[in-house]
Every structure is written in C-alpha cells, then in structure tokens.
C-alpha cells in the first residue's frame, strides 16, 4: 500500500468514526491537525488543573476551621490528581509530560486565564468552587462526549469529583450569606470579582473563536462557547439570588420569550489582555511553578540516580 492510499484509507476510517459518534483511540489514524488540537486542548486542561492549585493553596493555611481546611486540601489534591491523569491521557498522543510542562514554563502553552485573578478573601474559596468549578463542570460534562476516547473517559472520571468541588464552594458562600454583615459583604465582593472572569472562561464569542468551527466538525467540542456560557448563566443566576446576592451586571434581564438570562457586554479587552499574558497574576503563577520545578531538580536527580544504582546492583532476589 503506498502512502497516499494509506492516507485515504485512514482518513476514510477516521471520518466514519466521527460520523458514527464513536471514539478515536490512540492507535487510530488521525489527521495531524486533529492530533495537534487535542494535544493543545488536553495539555491546556492539565496545566489549568495544576496552576489552579495556587490560588486555593494560598488559603489552606488561613482556613477558618479544621473541616474547611481539610476540604480545601482535598480539593487541591484532586486538582493535582486531575492534572496527573490528564497529562497521562495526553501522553497517549505521543508527547511526554516533561515536554508539556516545559512548554507551559516557556509560555508556549496556556492554562485557563481564570487563575490569573487573585484570591483575596476567604469568600474567594467559595466563589472559586461555586463559579469557577461550576463553569468548568458545564464545559466538562459536554466534553464527556468529545471524540477522543482517552479525553472523554478522563472527563467522566473528573466530573464526579468536580461536582463535589462546586458544592463545597456554594456551601462556603451559603455560610457567609447567612452570617454577619461583614461576611455578607465578603460574599458579595467575591461574586463581584469572580462573575465576569467566570463568564470569560468559556472563551470568545463563537464569531471570534479561531478553533471553534474545526473543533466542532471533529467533535472535539460538542457545544460552542456561547452555548456553554448561556447554560452556565442560566444555572447560576438563580443560585446567586438564592444566596441573596446581586449579580454585578446592571443589564442582566430574564428574557421571557427565550427562557434565558441575557447579560451585558463582557469586557473583551480584559479577556484578551489576560490571555496574552497581561492579567493580574500571569507572571506570578508561572514564576511560582517554575521556582518549585527548579527547586525540586536535585530531588528528581536523586531519585533517578538511586534507581540507576539499584539496577546496577546484583539481583537481590536471585
């Protein structure tokens, strides 16, 4: 079989799998563009989990009770686990975790811009769980139907844990909303600061999104940015009202005809600035990550050297 026939057969099989809504598996032939897009998206997802540990780790030490502290530790630990799991799933496409981490450190791959916003009060632990994890879940539930098998299966596993994250966030907000005036103000302030960035997590409008059309055709994405954003808005606005809080958007109205909430304009200048590296904490987040990696080098070297010495030793079991 010559190369062009192999390509045609591969492409035909790939198209058939996509058309039948079945999964592409690591050994299947896939177009280079598909492979690159899935790697980019999965790596970005893995990086987001890992960078996302930082704003919450910042509050573990100051958590108000041991139970809240333990829950927050468990959540941050889940994020490390999700990162690890997603890196492994990405490795099925022929890249190594070290390569991907290198690209993150060099600024050549991105992570979710939401983590470039600072966590300034205890209420932010509530807002992050409720809004940030809430937005992530909307996205990830749909991604369970993504066409790349290992990614789809990773999403099934991760979604189960994420719903606990969102619930613990809402529970923090609930305690504050029922508390003192200061606590209520803290709750509202966190909502004010996290609402718009959470909406930006879904990316630019469909008309502005570079990858949407192709990703939809390949069934990597199953719903567009605007569709996902609307799902999140519709589920979250009533939750904010239940807390007795105000959504920081004077243009927010409920459209009786469509049954959806309509929002005011998102600040796209802020969105693009943050994506391009000029958000509040872009530099700090990467610096923290690179510093930990560099400071851990001697430990990784020691583990490697030890393993090599063990190989050189005569087999103890013999």
């Amino acid at each position, binding site marked *: 079989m010559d190369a062009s026939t192999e390509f045609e057969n591969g492409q035909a099989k790939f198209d058939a799998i996509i058309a039948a809504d079945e999964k592409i598996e690591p050994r299947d032939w896939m177009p280079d563009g598909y492979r690159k897009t899935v790697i980019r998206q999965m790596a970005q997802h893995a990086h987001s989990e890992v960078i996302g540990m930082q704003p919450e780790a910042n509050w573990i*030490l100051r958590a108000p009770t041991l139970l809240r502290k333990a829950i927050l*530790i468990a959540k941050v630990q889940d994020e490390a686990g999700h990162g690890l799991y997603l890196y492994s799933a990405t490795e099925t496409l022929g890249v190594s975790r070290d390569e991907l981490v290198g690209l993150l450190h060099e600024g050549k791959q991105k992570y979710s811009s939401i983590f470039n916003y600072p966590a300034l009060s205890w209420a932010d632990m509530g807002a992050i769980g409720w809004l940030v994890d809430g937005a992530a879940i909307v996205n990830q539930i749909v991604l369970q139907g993504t066409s790349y098998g290992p990614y789809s299966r990773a999403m099934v596993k991760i979604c189960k844990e994420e719903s606990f994250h969102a619930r613990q966030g809402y529970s923090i907000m609930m305690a504050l909303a029922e508390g003192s005036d200061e606590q209520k103000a803290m709750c509202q302030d966190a909502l004010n600061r996290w609402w718009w960035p959470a909406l930006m997590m879904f990316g630019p409008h469909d008309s502005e999104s570079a990858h949407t059309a192709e990703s939809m055709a390949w069934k990597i994405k199953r719903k567009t940015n605007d569709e996902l954003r609307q799902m999140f808005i519709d589920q979250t606005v009533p939750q904010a009202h239940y807390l007795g809080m105000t959504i920081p958007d004077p243009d927010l109205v409920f459209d009786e005809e469509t049954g959806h909430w309509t929002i005011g304009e998102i600040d796209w200048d802020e969105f693009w600035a943050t994506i391009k590296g000029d958000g509040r904490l872009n530099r700090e987040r990467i610096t923290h990550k690179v510093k930990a990696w560099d400071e851990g080098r*001697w430990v990784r070297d020691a583990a490697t050297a030890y393993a090599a010495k063990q190989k050189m030793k005569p087999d103890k079991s013999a």
Partner: protein
Amino acid sequence: MTAVTTQNALATYVVRHADDNVVLGQRLAEYISRAPELEEDLAIGNLTLDHIGVADHLFTYAAKIDGCDLSGDDLVMFRSERDYTNLLLVEQRHDGFDDLIARQFLFDAYQLPFWEALSASNDETIAGIAQRAAKEARYHLRHSSMWMVRLGDGTPESHTRIQASIDRLWRFTSEMFETDALDREMVESGLGVDTSTLRETWESSVDAVLEEATLTRPQDSFQTSGGRSGMHTEYLGPMLAEMQWLQRSQPGMSW
C-alpha cells in the same frame, strides 16, 4: 470569651497530641503546590489530610470530655503560643524538601509506635482514633523512609543536603521520649502511653533507614525540649498568627 484552656487532665493530654498533628499538618500544607513532582504534591496532600483529620477528631473529643463550652475549633483558633503543647520538632520550618522529609521521618518513626501503643488505651474513643491513625502512620513512615533512602543514596548533593537536615533536627528528637507528671498520670490510669518505652523501637527503625540511606547518625548530644510546657522555638508564633487570623479577626462567627 473566657480563657481557652482545658481543665480536665485527659482533655489536656489529648490536646497535646492534637497539637502535634495540627502543627505538623499546617507545616505540610505550606508545601502544597511546591513539590518536586506532581505525584509528590498528591502524597503531601495525603499526609496533610491525615494529620489535620486526626487533629480534628482529637480536638473535638478533648472539648467534649472537658465539658467546657468550647468547640474543637476554639481550641485550635483561640489558644496562644504558650498554650500550645506540641513537640518542638513538628513546628520546625523547612527550607526545602530535605528538611521536610527529615522532619517527617524522625517524627513518623516515633508516631507509628505511639499510635500502636495508644490503641490499647482504656478509653474507647481514644483507642479508636489511635487505631485508625496507626494505619495512616504506617504509610507515612514508609513514604518518608523511602525518600530518606533515595536522598541519602542518590547524588552527592542530595546526600549532603539530607544529612544536614537530619543533623539540624536531631536536637529535637529526645523530647519525644520525655515524660512528665501528666504522662505518668495517664499511664497509671491506663489511658495514655509511656513514650520513654518507645525509644528503642524508634532508634532501631531510624538506625536501619539511616544505614540503608548511607547516612550517619548525628553524634551531637545536645538536646532541647519544652514544647509540652509551652516553651516553643520562635517559629510557632508566626504559624499560629496566620492560621488563627480569620477566626480572631471576626470571632464568634459561623464559617
């Protein structure tokens, strides 16, 4: 709020050991998101959760048996430096993974036999907490011993660093085996553990791991103590300031 202390002897005894765990848990938490590998971030998260979890159980129980109007969290958040009675070893700061592992290892090798012995306490609740904690401590000791060996017998740099950490922390080890009047009272009533009897077990597990790790047991005989009577090093205060800040800035609130 009245002074936050326990009056009951058993409660005071339980708080000592709760203090060891909350302080060590807080130290470990400082390292989360800073580990050399993602796998290690997960492992350190586990250790932290175990120590914070057992502390929570012990504080809650201490508050209950003391019959005071305090909650377990009150004991954590509203006692000051001089009222904390943890061992000095667990409050020591780490500059890196070397200090962190050395501190864990020296303490794990003590805490495992401690929990095992406390599992035989006459008090059912304490025995139950200790039995569960012993299972966790077995994993903790395996984890820290594994790293001691890898760092000790890894590269020349790792060998030097972990030896220096062990040397630096060695002076806080004898305190784990000291006993005072409260310990003796608890031992006599069958509730507590005579930690002086744990020393032999500790020494043999420490010596075995140091040998496998090609490390040298420190020869410096200087030892320091005082944690059980609230005489701390200067590192505990800043840690408590951070840990207690939110509760103290808005006391009496629900979180």
